[in-house]
């Protein structure tokens, strides 16, 4: 083991493929945050009064809050006055009306990321909304979706075209003052995606949003709201990247999902924000609040996430299981290499009768990384017959990384069933040698072992993205064990 471990470390080398900067003119607010900035963002977006009021209320509340310190992550204090809260690619006078009007440099950026907004998207049959820094630049397939009655557009467009839906649902799952980062987002969020699937409609294609932070010293605060009405179903995927910079950049998003009676929402994330270099310099601080509410009976919300990026990940996609017989699921692969820190998990709040939840978390740590699973299963007195199954497995590569598990359980109904399984294993030198002895290279062997470890999660991803996730995983762990 000892003679091998120096190889392990020598080979831990991260290669980030999306670290380019697009040289594009942008319209940004100077760094700093006060009520004037909040109002300026709202004005730039020509928002209705109710939204400005909502933002200001959130901002005032945020000012009374303190940054949380309970997560198992360490970072220097963030100077919230040193961040620019708005950056938009400068579009000629008006925003682009069709893809043809989108700055070709932007399209090239997305093509480089493997997100073709043009033909290939058409072939793939996936509708894409692309968010660049603070604004949404293009949404494909809008018309085809409209024919099915599905609304899929940027959050800003939704504010203008569907204000009643926004007013009805915004902040009903993640209230403006929910937590420090959610409050900040509520005050300054600039764009994001909006989805509404009307009653009885199965969304005819996968919906997808790609987020990219480009401008320096910019924070990204997008907000996503997805509503599946009675009997509707939708599958949604988000992907994220950022350029390589040696300062840390803040990403504080909020995602709200609402599933009414018999509705289903499947939300998948492939998160690949820049993680910082091998010495831990730079990278995105990813402080995200994601929550779904199974508001109706027999509804189902399923989170699947593959988290490979970010310097720090602080994220707990959760389900509030309010409707009777509703189902919450959380499938996660979190990879932390080099000096990455991940504190991620989920919350399953059982309120309705016979609600069920499943949690499968796979943490992979390499280099000097810290990887924590933090999960809460809360079963309220009203949740008779509720059931939860939790499985948390950690895989360690090398000897300098760490894995932690913080499961919290509160069961207040005697008819509930809660199961928890946990394991931690070191990527076996034995497993590795076994593969080598069969002639398989170390790189292939590690990929194989890690994929095997993550298999149950990958099979939850939409088919088109399972391959991408697998590739991403092998890039993130490139050379992590030799």
């Amino acid at each position: 083991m000892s003679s091998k471990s120096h190889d392990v470390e020598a080979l831990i080398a991260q290669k980030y493929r999306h670290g380019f900067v697009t040289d594009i003119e942008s319209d940004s607010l100077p760094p700093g945050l006060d009520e004037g900035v909040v109002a300026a963002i709202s004005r730039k977006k020509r928002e209705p009064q109710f939204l400005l009021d909502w933002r200001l209320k959130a901002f005032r509340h945020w000012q009374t809050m303190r940054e949380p310190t309970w997560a198992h992550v360490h970072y220097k204090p963030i100077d919230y006055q040193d961040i620019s809260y708005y950056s938009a690619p400068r579009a000629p006078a008006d925003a682009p009306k069709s893809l043809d009007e989108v700055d070709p440099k932007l399209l090239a950026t997305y093509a480089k990321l493997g997100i073709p907004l043009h033909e290939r998207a058409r072939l793939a049959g996936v509708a894409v909304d692309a968010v660049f820094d603070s604004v949404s630049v293009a949404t494909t397939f809008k018309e085809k979706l409209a024919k099915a009655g599905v609304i899929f557009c940027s959050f800003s467009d939704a504010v203008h075209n569907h204000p009643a839906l926004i007013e009805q649902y915004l902040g009903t799952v993640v209230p403006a003052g929910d937590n420090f980062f959610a409050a900040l987002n509520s005050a300054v969020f600039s764009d994001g995606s909006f989805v509404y699937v009307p009653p009885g409609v199965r969304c005819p294609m996968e919906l997808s949003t790609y987020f990219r932070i480009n401008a320096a010293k910019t924070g990204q605060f997008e907000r996503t709201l997805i509503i599946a009405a009675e009997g509707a179903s939708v599958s949604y995927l988000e992907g994220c990247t950022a350029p390589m910079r040696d300062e840390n950049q803040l990403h504080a998003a909020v995602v709200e999902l609402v599933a009414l009676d018999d509705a289903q929402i499947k939300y998948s994330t492939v998160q690949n924000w820049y993680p910082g270099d091998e010495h831990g310099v730079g990278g995105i601080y990813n402080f995200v609040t994601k929550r779904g509410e199974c508001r109706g009976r027999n509804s189902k919300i399923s989170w699947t996430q593959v988290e490979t990026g970010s310097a720090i990940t602080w994220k707990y996609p959760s389900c509030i299981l309010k409707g009777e017989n509703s189902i919450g699921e959380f499938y996660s692969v979190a990879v932390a290499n080099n000096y990455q820190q991940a504190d991620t998990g989920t919350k399953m709040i059982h309120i309705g009768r016979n609600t069920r939840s499943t949690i499968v978390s796979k943490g992979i740590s390499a280099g000097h990384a810290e990887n924590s699973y933090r999960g809460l299963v809360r079963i309220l007195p009203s949740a008779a017959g509720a059931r939860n199954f939790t499985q948390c497995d950690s895989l360690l590569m090398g000897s300098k990384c760490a894995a932690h598990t913080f499961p919290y359980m509160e069961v207040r109904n005697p008819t509930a069933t809660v199961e928890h399984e946990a394991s931690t294993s070191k990527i076996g030198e034995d497993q590795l040698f076994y593969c080598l002895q069969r002639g398989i290279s170390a790189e292939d062997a590690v990929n194989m072992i890690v994929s095997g470890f993550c298999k149950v999660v990958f099979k939850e991803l939409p088919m088109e993205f399972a391959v991408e996730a697998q590739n991403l995983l092998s890039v993130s762990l490139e050379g992590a064990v030799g």
Partner: protein
Amino acid sequence: MLLKISQLSARVAGKAILNGIDLEVAAGEVHAIMGPNGSGKSTLAQVLAGREDYEVTGGSVSFEGRDLLAMAAEERARAGLFLGFQYPVEIPGVNNVYLLKAALNAKRKAAGEPEVDAYEFLGLVKEKMKLMQMSESFLTRGVNEGFSGGEKKRNEVLQMLVLEPKLAILDETDSGLDIDALKVVSKGVNSLRDPGRAVVLVTHYQRLLEYIVPDKVHVLSGGRILKSGDRSLALELERRGYDWVKESRVA
């Protein structure tokens, strides 16, 4: 000479385990290496396969004229050296046949051959599985995942049959097998016997040698080969015990 070991010494965690091994194995031969617990049998197998936990402190090993010790573990495997593990590891979620196919393709690639056709490969695996009396469920299970001890050993031999190594070192492949399984495993090993290949059996027990008849038998003790002979040596060992070899050596 297929394998030529000269004065091989090795240690693990600072402790000398092999103290000058000399051994020659020609193509077409089956050798048995016997010896008491802690004599260095498994260490020898692991050192030959290239496990880095073991530090080679002296001597040399040539495999088909190449310096084996200079080759990485995966190169040795691709060159045709196979180790049947005493304790095959489980690799959860990795399909048993997927691993085997990756192994075969790695070997073919190293030899400049194209990747194996998936259909052809499946046919080959099924044929060998039949020989090893394994059920088709092994096609879909994870590598050694939840296998019984006997199933793991059969799986090792299955891999060997598919990979067709020039030199197979089987480390206590017989341990933990009941008599029926022992026969199946032996049949598998015997099916690989060929003028171009050699097998080295590492074993405690004479029992295996009733089914796989060796050309030569060596007794390993204290990290050295104390005595070599033909099949009758194994029978004599069984009758007189290992102490007899040690004593006769002293005398």
